[in-house]
């Protein structure tokens, strides 16, 4: 039963997402009617998620900021063509992901990290770090920093498409169908990429996965 619920959650968008999509559509209609200020509400609502996706794909916060701004500007310039057939966030994610993929393909050889610090206010992350180390103080910070670099290194070793699927599913929490909509591929492709990417990550992060 629990597995079925997990599968349903992974496959189908949640009802909250549908309500969210309806609210976004109303704002988009206002922008299309000429209310330019209404677009600021969409920026404020989605900026952290868009920056987060791009940051986890690039592992560079400056690039993430620039690409997220460009994605919002592109969405603003093209919002008159938004028909409402897909949800706004899917449309916005598609713009952001495509811009990031294009950027990554252009700068395939130039990749360096510019990482944000991990905030341990989150209970889940604090619990994970506690499970991995019993150090405290400066030693704990050093361990967290090393783990973060190792995580980003393992993510950058994935191909661009595998990295995007992992980012959208594991970090941003999108369903398989939503990822398929964003990446314009089939759900089977999404699942296949996700499975393969997790296998690679498991091999890369083996020292941090106690048996």
């Amino acid at each position, binding site marked *: 039963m629990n597995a079925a619920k997990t599968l349903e959650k992974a496959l189908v968008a949640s009802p909250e997402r549908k309500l969210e999509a309806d609210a976004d559509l109303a704002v988009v209609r206002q922008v299309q009617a000429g209310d330019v200020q209404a677009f600021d509400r969409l920026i404020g609502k989605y900026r952290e998620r868009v*920056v987060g996706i791009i940051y986890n794909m690039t592992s560079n916060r400056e690039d993430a900021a620039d690409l997220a701004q460009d994605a919002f500007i592109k969405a603003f310039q093209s919002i008159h063509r938004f028909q409402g057939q897909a949800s706004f966030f899917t449309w916005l994610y598609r713009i952001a992901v495509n811009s990031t993929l294009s950027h990554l393909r252009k700068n395939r050889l130039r990749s360096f990290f510019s990482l944000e610090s991990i905030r341990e206010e989150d209970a889940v992350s604090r619990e994970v770090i506690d499970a991995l180390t019993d150090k405290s103080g400066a030693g704990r910070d050093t361990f967290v920093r090393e783990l973060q670099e190792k*995580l980003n290194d393992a993510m950058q070793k994935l191909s661009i498409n595998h990295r995007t699927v992992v980012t959208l599913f594991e970090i941003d929490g999108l369903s398989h169908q939503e990822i398929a909509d964003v990446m314009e591929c089939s759900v089977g492709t999404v699942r296949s990429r996700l499975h393969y990417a997790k296998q690679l990550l498991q091999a890369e992060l083996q020292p941090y996965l106690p048996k």
Partner: protein
Amino acid sequence: MNQDRKITVEDLLRLKRAERPPAEFWAKFDAEIRAKQLSAIVSRRPWWVGLIRGFSGVRRMQLPLGAAAAVALTWAGLHYAGSRPVTVQVLPAAVTVTRAPEATAAVPAPQPVKLSIAVHEVVESSPRDLAAAEKPVVAATSSHLVQAPAALSAEATSASPFADGIAVTLADYRSMTVDVARTPTFGSDREFEPSIAPSHPQVSDPLAHVDPAEERRERLLAPALGPRQITGDWMKQRASTEVRMYESMDDHTSSDRSLVGFRF
């Protein structure tokens, strides 16, 4: 370290959710995006941006569209060329080509100065075209590129520019092949010499009978042998001419005025 908690890859990836930028990052982000938004509103995009965006959908299908265009062009070309009969007439190179019914290679030309060459025609069409080809075709130049279209236009069997071009090229190729095959490689030029040479007027060379070695010897020995010892014809003529010129000058310079005339 909590040994009871089993850590998975998903747990490690969840740590990345906690990588969040500080508050000042968002202040800078908002300022930059507002500036970009304003510049996007104010700046006018050039006219070709819309054109490029219009063709962006076509760009995805460039391979099937290109293949379809190639197939359509090929079909149209074959259909256009295949709908009309093509008459190919091969005319050899000639200085003067006169096609008379009685003119054949075995019959000698009435005038030895003129060069008569039988016209070889290769007609690749119906017997009706063969009958029509019996009409005399007179071309005043030796270029096949001029002759063949004239013949084709006289026949008026092909109105297609492609067919005309193909006919001209084929005519050139075949005539060249015939000439090479029928003409021996060596000695062919000499066969034309007797008939062509009389057509040129005879030109007399004033120095044709002068022996350069003898003339040089006499010229060098002239100071030693004296003016009377000149035996060469050319030197004798020159010496007598100079003497006469000096004598005439003496006659003119004896008076106060001298007359100088130029004859061209």
